[in-house]
Each structure stands twice: as C-alpha cells, then as structure tokens.
C-alpha cells in the first residue's frame, strides 16, 4: 500500500443500492447480524496454538523426537528451527568476538528454514498461531477493553514505529554487552521454557507485562516492544498468503476493525477509503482470522495471492 510512497486516489464511495444489504433486500441492521457468532478461524487457530505448544511439552515429557527444544530454538522431526531475532543478536555478537566461524550448519539451516516458512505464511502469523504469550495477551486485551468500557481505566496508545526502535536497540545492546539481553526478557521464550522444563520465578516478569497491558496500554508488548514480532513483520512483507478484501461485498460496517488485533491494517474498509476493488492486508497482520469470521458480507477471506487468479 503506502510502502513505496505512492498514494493512489480513493475510489468514489459506494451508492446505497450497491451496498450488499440492498442487494439482498435486507435491513442494514439485520445484515450486520449475519455471521455474528461464527468462530471458525478463531477455534482453528486456538486449537493449533495449543497443539503446537503441547507438542513441545509432550515431546520432552515422553521423550519423543517430534518437536524438541523450545520456541527459541527447536527441532521438528530432526529439522532445526531457530528464532531469527535470537540469531540476529548472536550474529551481532559473533562479529565482535570472532565467534562466527564456529557456528554450525544446523544454525544456518534452522535460520533459513524458519525465515522461508514465515515469508510464505506471511505477516506475523507466528504471533497468533504459535506464540503462547499472544494467547495470554488476547485474554488480557479482552479484560482491558472491558475495563475501558466501564470507564475504570483510560486507554494509552503509542506509535507502532517504536517496535523498530526496540528492534535496533536490542541488537545494539547485544553487541555492546555480549549477552543475548533480549532473550532474558523475552516472554515468548520464558513461557515456552516454563511450560516445557518447569516454571520458575522469572514468570513474575511475564506477569508484570500482562498487568501493564491490562491496566495501562492495550497490547503494549506485542504492539510497541516485541522485536520478534517486528522481525516477522519485515520477513512477512511479500508473502503470498494473506487476507483479501473485496470492496463489492463490503457494507462498511467496520465490525472487522473492532475485532482486529491490528486495526490499522484494515484501513480500506472505511467508506470512501479503498483505492482498489481488491486489497490485501499488510505485514502487521497476524493472520488471526477474526475479521474473516465476523464479516457479514464475507468480504474478507484468506487467500493465496496469484493462486486465486489461476483457479
């Protein structure tokens, strides 16, 4: 979209008779109620997230070679997978300490396998489909929204660009201190290790972040800090798997933006904003599928770019 700096003119706003509810001959309110309780993708996603994390736990507990290790580095049926941000930190330190030549082939394989995989799956799909912290934060977000609605607390938001400040900052920090500083603070790794190898006092840190997200700023860690998410955002920029938006099916009810974890990615659903008949969501999208579930007109759908043209 705005990635290359060119801004195209928005299409003229849709006329009333072109709206999907008019085509169906329904009152707008009734139309909006369509698909109200559909949770197909959410259920699939939660099932997958729990399955993956359980697979880690079971592999260790029962000594099976299915998915060994933890989310900072693992082996799936013998194939290595490494967290890229961890790898970047390690590379930064390696350059300084001349440790680079010692790195193993498994490191190279693990790094590129995961980068290629998420470049295909796109966006921050890791976040909503695998990350255990995301799962907790989703519930924290619900609680936060409830408290804001009840006017118990005020919402505080920041700029999303902050993530990239932290991204660069933690790399520099690793380089300067010769320690994987971020990995010690990383709630993803902490939760993953706690589940697999047993809990420890460090879980208190995760509790602090969750508490902060509930009472102060919605999704603070995921939105403004987490450099792992930022890494996926960069890697998943050109992915073929995405959510496709079709303007002719959209009734501009914006229910999708209400449920979206990254509402700015759905900028084109507002009446008179879309510049094309079809839009694809950007790389901040976690491919969670909330919008796909909720859309009354089925204007949003998962797609593989290019493939839908062939079929």
């Amino acid at each position, binding site marked *: 979209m705005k990635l290359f700096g060119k801004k195209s003119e928005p299409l003229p706003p849709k006329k009333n008779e072109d709206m999907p509810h008019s085509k169906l001959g329904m009152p707008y309110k009734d139309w909006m109620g369509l698909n109200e309780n559909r949770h197909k993708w959410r259920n699939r996603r939660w099932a997958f997230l729990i399955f993956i994390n359980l697979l880690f736990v079971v592999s260790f507990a029962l000594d099976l070679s299915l998915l060994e290790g933890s989310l900072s580095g693992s082996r799936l049926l013998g194939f290595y997978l490494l967290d890229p941000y961890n790898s970047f930190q390690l590379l930064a330190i390696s350059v300084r300490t001349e440790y680079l030549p010692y790195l193993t082939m498994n490191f190279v394989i693990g790094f590129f396998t995961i980068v290629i995989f998420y470049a295909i799956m796109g966006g921050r799909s890791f976040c909503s489909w695998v990350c255990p912290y995301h799962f907790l934060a989703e519930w924290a977000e619900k609680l936060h929204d409830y408290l804001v609605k009840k006017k118990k607390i005020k919402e505080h938001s920041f700029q999303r660009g902050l993530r990239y400040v932290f991204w660069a*900052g933690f790399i520099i920090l690793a380089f300067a201190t010769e320690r994987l500083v971020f990995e010690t603070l990383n709630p993803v790794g902490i939760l993953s290790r706690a589940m697999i190898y047993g809990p420890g006092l460090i879980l208190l840190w995760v509790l602090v972040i969750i508490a902060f997200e509930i009472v102060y700023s919605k999704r603070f860690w995921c939105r403004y800090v987490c450099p792992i998410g930022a890494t996926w955002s960069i890697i998943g920029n050109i992915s073929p798997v995405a959510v496709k938006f079709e303007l002719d099916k959209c009734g501009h009810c914006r229910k999708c933006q209400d449920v979206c974890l990254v509402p700015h990615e759905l900028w084109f659903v507002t009446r008179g904003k879309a510049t094309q008949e079809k839009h694809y969501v950007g790389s901040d999208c976690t491919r969670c599928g909330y919008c796909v579930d909720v859309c009354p007109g089925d204007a949003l759908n998962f797609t593989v770019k290019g493939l839908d043209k062939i079929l």
Partner: protein
Amino acid sequence: MAKENKTNINRRQFLKSTAVATASMVAIGAGVSFIQKYKHDENDGKQLLRPPGAIEEDAFLYACIKCGLCVQICPIHAIKLAGINENLSYGTPYINAREQACDFSCDSIQCAETCPTAALYFVQFKEAGLKAIEEVQKQGPEALKNINPFKVQVVAMKKVTRIGVAKLNEKTCLSVKGKGFSGTPRGKDFKGVLRPQSKESRKAYPLREQNYEREICDLCVTECPIGEEAIKLEKNVNADGTVSYKPKVLEGCTGCGVCEMICPTEPASIVIEAGKKYEEVYS
C-alpha cells in the same frame, strides 16, 4: 491545517516515546554490565558445571540461545536449565553433579552434537574420534580386525571432554582415613543413575539398586568412566610400616562428576571445580 497539527503531535509523541525507549534500553544495558562485573568479582571464577563440550564461560553465555535441546537429548536427564537465581545465566544448561552426574551414558556426546549454536562445541569430539581410528589404522590392517571402531571412537571422544576437574577433600575422604565402605553409597532414596564400570552394559542403573563392599573405599576410582588416566588409588607405605591410601586425580580427569555423585560421605569428599583446568587446580 488540523491534519498537519495532528502529524506534529504524533511526531512529538513518537520522539518522546523513542527517548523513553532508548533510556530504558540504556538502563537495561547498564544493569547487565553491572551484574556481569559484580557477579564476576563476587564469584571469583566459580561457575556452573556446563555440559560436555562447553566453550569458555564468557562466550558460552552469549552463544547459548537457551533452547534446551541438550536438556532433551540427555538420556539420563543430567542437564538442567538454570533459574533466574543464577542472574545472567538464566536459561542456560548446567549439571548438578552431586544429584546426577554425566556418566557418558549416551556414548556420543549427544548434547554437544545437538547444539545448534556450538555453545557446546562438537567438532573437537568428532576430530578426536577420527584421530583415534587413524591411530589404529596406522598399526596395520591386522589391528583393525580385532577392534570395534565404534568403541575406539567413543573412548577417544569421552577423553577430550574438559568441563572441570575433580578435587579431593582429604579431611573427610574415607580412604584417606583408612575406612572401607559397604552398602548403597547415597541411600535408598537417591534418584541418580549410573552406568556401572563393572558391567559391560550400556545402560544406566539407579544408584540406589547398587551395593558395594570395599575394605578401603575406592568408589570414585573404580566407577570413574575414564579410568586410570583420570584417577587412581595411591598406596603409600609410611615410615612406621603402616599403609595409607589416597585417591589421586590425574590430568585425564574430564570433570564429568561421577566421583562427586557416588562419594558416600556427606558432603561429598571429592567435588568438581567447574570450568577449571587441571593446571589451575593442581599446580
């Protein structure tokens, strides 16, 4: 105009939050450096006992990505991950030799082989194994027929391990006192396992099932997975004709910790000095 104002506010807010973010990261960096230095001075060179193949501690702390693959592959569960009470070592693997020592049950130093970042460096073991085979080949084709190359390789791999050095406390050692030992060294509730040197078995048995009868306690010597290159029972005939014994640690000691685990005294009379070299301890 209003829109321009909004961008300005946004920009100002962004700069403000960037400043806060940078400040907090600098604070974290300063904190890490402080703990690093403070702990280094306080520990006075003491460190955790790392799994076989561990590179030098300073490098180990950054090379280890805390994935726990070594923990998972260890067949006797000797490797654990450190908690936050170990400060910057949080999440890194260590061995508590007194509870469960590395007895080389895996026969291939799997923990080092599985490590994706070479924090546990496997190449040294591989080279040692190949070199040992070559040595045998040099003796001619006859020599190769009579040996099991796998075994030659395994022995050579074990021998190059250097994760620490055993150190004896002569004040409490049973054999120095001239005492023997009979029974189960660590009691009937002890959870650790050990691959007995007396059996040809490649399986580790719970130590609580083992019974030993010794006139002079020499468990650390007989159960050492490396053997006479690492530790031997020294026999001294004193001037008055009496005989005294003492287990002597030699340069071949790998620091695996089996002696520390099996030592029947409480606390153990022989302990591993983690990360130390032989010359540092015995000079």
